């Protein structure tokens, strides 16, 4: 049956409309859970608030478990889902840059827009920074091109590259997630409470 759009159950003309609806919902949830505050986001790195870690880890868990149940029951075909292609070095270096930006600015690209929406000045400056970065990147693309398109691994997932059974992988992943939640809670309790 699913995924709905590639199988033509929902025509692909609706892509943008669905994207907007999901985007609005995503933005609402981000704002409602306080993710438009840079202090909350940066809390992960300083050890006083692990909401970001918990939220994104839980979201990933719920999604994978749900998808695999749906796959098992025949409502969805995992093989048809889009897997983002892996460019190894591009991903590593990009990840480092994004991480630095995350700690320094206290936003990730999505939450910064969320924060702009509620009128935070730091977020506005952050977004301007993103735009400048985009501009520099596209102007100097010929320099970055070998890095950007190099070390291409195709649309692989961890299950492909490690060759493990996806079900066991999900189970182990769940346990890792819950252990990390417990550890993050312990760390948070040790740290001094910071009000923000």
């Amino acid at each position, binding site marked *: 049956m699913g*995924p709905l*759009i*590639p199988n033509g159950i929902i025509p*692909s003309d609706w892509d943008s409309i669905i994207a907007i609806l999901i985007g609005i919902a995503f933005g609402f949830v981000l704002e409602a859970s306080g993710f438009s505050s840079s202090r909350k986001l940066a809390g992960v790195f300083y050890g006083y608030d692990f909401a970001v870690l918990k939220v994104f880890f*839980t979201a990933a*868990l*719920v999604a994978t*478990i749900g998808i*695999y*149940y749906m796959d*098992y029951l*025949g409502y969805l075909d995992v093989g048809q889902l*889009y897997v*983002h292609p892996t460019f190894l070095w591009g991903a590593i270096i990009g990840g480092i840059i994004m991480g630095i930006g995350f700690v320094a600015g206290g936003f*990730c*690209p*999505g939450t910064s827009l969320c924060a702009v929406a509620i009128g935070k000045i730091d977020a506005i400056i952050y977004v301007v920074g993103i735009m400048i970065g985009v501009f520099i990147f596209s102007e100097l693309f010929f320099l970055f091109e070998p890095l950007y398109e190099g070390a291409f691994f195709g649309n692989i997932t961890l299950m492909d590259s490690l060759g493990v059974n996806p*079900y*066991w992988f*999900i*189970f182990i*992943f*769940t*346990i890792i*997630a*819950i252990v990390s*939640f417990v550890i993050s809670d312990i760390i948070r309790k040790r740290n001094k409470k910071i009000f923000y």
Partner: protein
Amino acid sequence: MVKRKVAKVLAFRYKILAGILIILAGGLVLLPKYEKHEGIKPEQLLSNVISPERYISTDILADKLINQDPSYLLIDVRDKESYHTYTLPNAINIPLAKLLDEDSERYLNQDEYDVVLFSNDNFYADQAWILCNRLDYQNLHVLKGGINQWFNTVINPPKPLENMPTEQFELYSFRKAASMYFGVAYPEQFKAVKKPKKKIVKKIITVKKKKKAPAEGGC
């Protein structure tokens, strides 16, 4: 009083949620596994297979070829050798063994052409059709009787007997004309001999891959 009890239970809420996640993930591991259902339902496949809708007769195909209907794509599922000995004009060779290769999929899983599968008889072509039908490929047909039938009707049509109805004669004259088109010469036919045998130029057929709109993801 109730509220306090609820609050007591809810004090464990994160543990409960964590427990649910672990149980669900463990359930995935423990669930009995079975071979993934690939393609359409067996019941559906059976009813598709039983119906003779997939067959196209040699006469109709000859008509389409003579009129150079651009929407038809012929696929020869015999091996290479037989393909090189004789094949229908502009046919593409996809041996049965290579039917599920990625290159073949371009020709079979598309919605631009009406694909006609054929082999010597319709046995192998039928098998190819059934496999493709299971994978839910559309617009596939099978040449009824295959090359043998093609030979018996179009290339070497049997002369109708005197006492047969006129339709038979009409059919015969059509088939004879068709056979001339496909290169057979008749004694009473003068021109065809003089003409140097037209070499059938292999048309290059390009098939666009069915768009499976790749969804772009992003954070």
